[in-house]
């Protein structure tokens, strides 16, 4: 039941226990217990909402920043990653294989603020060797959801 529960929650975290119990064919208590366990084990980490900010009046600018760093003795990349992810404007930090080390995504109110973050905070960190900043122009798909997808049932209304 755990895998199936996770796949439902990943798509819809607002679904209530009652409905989950029906869909999975188990009792509400079992659902509650399993979710509590998943949260305790830090498998379910948070419940987010995917917002299409473009449709609001709120200005947001996002960027992906490739960062090359020197790993530190004894701590590898973890220490530098932590110094970066502690900034609240940093949305995500991934350790990456390939041409650079960390991929940092950033969300700010303006281009200027992103530039300031990169030049003042990120590049000045001791172990950061170089950065390359890519601004996001348009989001087509995020967290498995296609943005602006029109869903219309095009099937015939009655078929045998």
């Amino acid at each position, binding site marked *: 039941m755990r895998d199936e529960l996770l796949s439902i929650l990943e798509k819809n975290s607002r679904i209530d226990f009652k*409905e989950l119990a029906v869909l999975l064919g188990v009792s509400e208590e079992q659902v509650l217990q399993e979710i509590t366990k998943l949260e305790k084990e830090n498998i379910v980490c948070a419940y987010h909402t995917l917002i299409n900010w473009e449709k609001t009046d709120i200005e947001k600018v996002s960027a992906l920043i490739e960062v090359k760093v020197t790993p530190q003795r004894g701590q590898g990349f973890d220490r530098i990653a932590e110094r970066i992810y502690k900034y609240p404007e940093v949305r995500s930090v991934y350790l990456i294989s390939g041409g650079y080390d960390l991929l940092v995504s950033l969300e700010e109110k303006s281009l200027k603020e992103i530039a300031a973050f990169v030049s003042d905070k990120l590049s000045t960190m001791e172990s950061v060797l170089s950065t390359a900043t890519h601004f996001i122009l348009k989001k087509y798909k995020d967290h498995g959801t296609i943005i602006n997808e029109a869903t219309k049932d095009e099937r015939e*209304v009655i078929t*045998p």
Partner: protein
Amino acid sequence: MRNFLSDKVVNLKPSGIRKFFDIVTEMEDAISLGVGEPDFDTPWFIRDEGIYSLEKGRTFYTSNSGLKDLRKEISNYIQRTQQINYNPDNEIVVTVGGSEAIDICLRAVINPGDEVVIPQPSYVSYEPCSVLAGAKPVIIKLKNENEFRLKPDELLNAVTDKSKVLILPYPNNPTGAIMEKEDLEKIAKIIKEKDLLVLSDEIYSALTYKGRHVSIASVDGMKERTILINGFSKAYAMTGWRLGYACGPKNLIKQMTKIHQFAIMCAPTTSQYAAVEALKKGDEEVEKMRQSYNQRRRFLMDAFKKMNLDCFEPYGAFYVFPCIKEFNMTSEEFATRLLREEKVAVVPGTAFGDCAEGYLRISYAYSIDNLKEALFRLEKFINRLRVS
């Protein structure tokens, strides 16, 4: 001018679904639970393969019985799901949907006067195809109390010395019924005794929610007297690609392929290439869709229980088949009123056989949100009927 029409065709009863379809299309904002096809799009990797085959210019006929690669993959698929071994060289023919396979199977085996035993409620084409092939259809009226499974005594009562073919439509459209291994073993005995051929329509085999689907061809001594029909429409959400297949003894497949060759040439080439990919890499996607259907099935059964609507628990396909006899109306009246008063379209059971009077086919090939709204309206409707 003469009347050019064939009596046989003119006398065929038009599909009951068609009539209802005409009423539904008048209603603009109706919610439909009447569709007999998946709501999922064909998984993208399959569509992509179809596109790629077009880009590569694979736009020619294939061999009559279908691409060799596809027949090999079909053979592998049946081996891994049913542990039955079919030779891709001469025991498989790729057809235009499962529907063509049904048609050419019947045409290949029927002599005038032969009887075809058809359990109903079941899919709309068995009876007309039997008639067109020159057979006399003999209907078995399946029962709600048996969960619409075919029972040995029912089969025995229907068989005469003219019976030649038994159509075995499980998992079943419209009831959602399945036949488990023990059920199949019991009827297999009679089938062998009475020397019948089975046309086993297993198009919904991947959508089984109680254990795994078992084919009658896997029962001892049945492979040589079974034509197993399956396809890509339901499992891979590929209805519009029109692709199915039949597997069976080579002498039968050979004659079926002859009809197929003269009537059709070959199944659509693009679809065949896409289907190879579906069989190679599709198991996981099919499982995901099956899980989704199963959640919706549980959701519907729970809702019916809460509204006290009589319905046996179906374990196959994507239909539930509630009984509406308590309301003292025909299925058609009920469905028409539900449509006019609450704008919900369901299919009257009678579209699938006269014996399905008093039942409705409700499809759960819809999103949970869609089902919720439809059930809310259905509940309003039946509550109104109950107080009046």
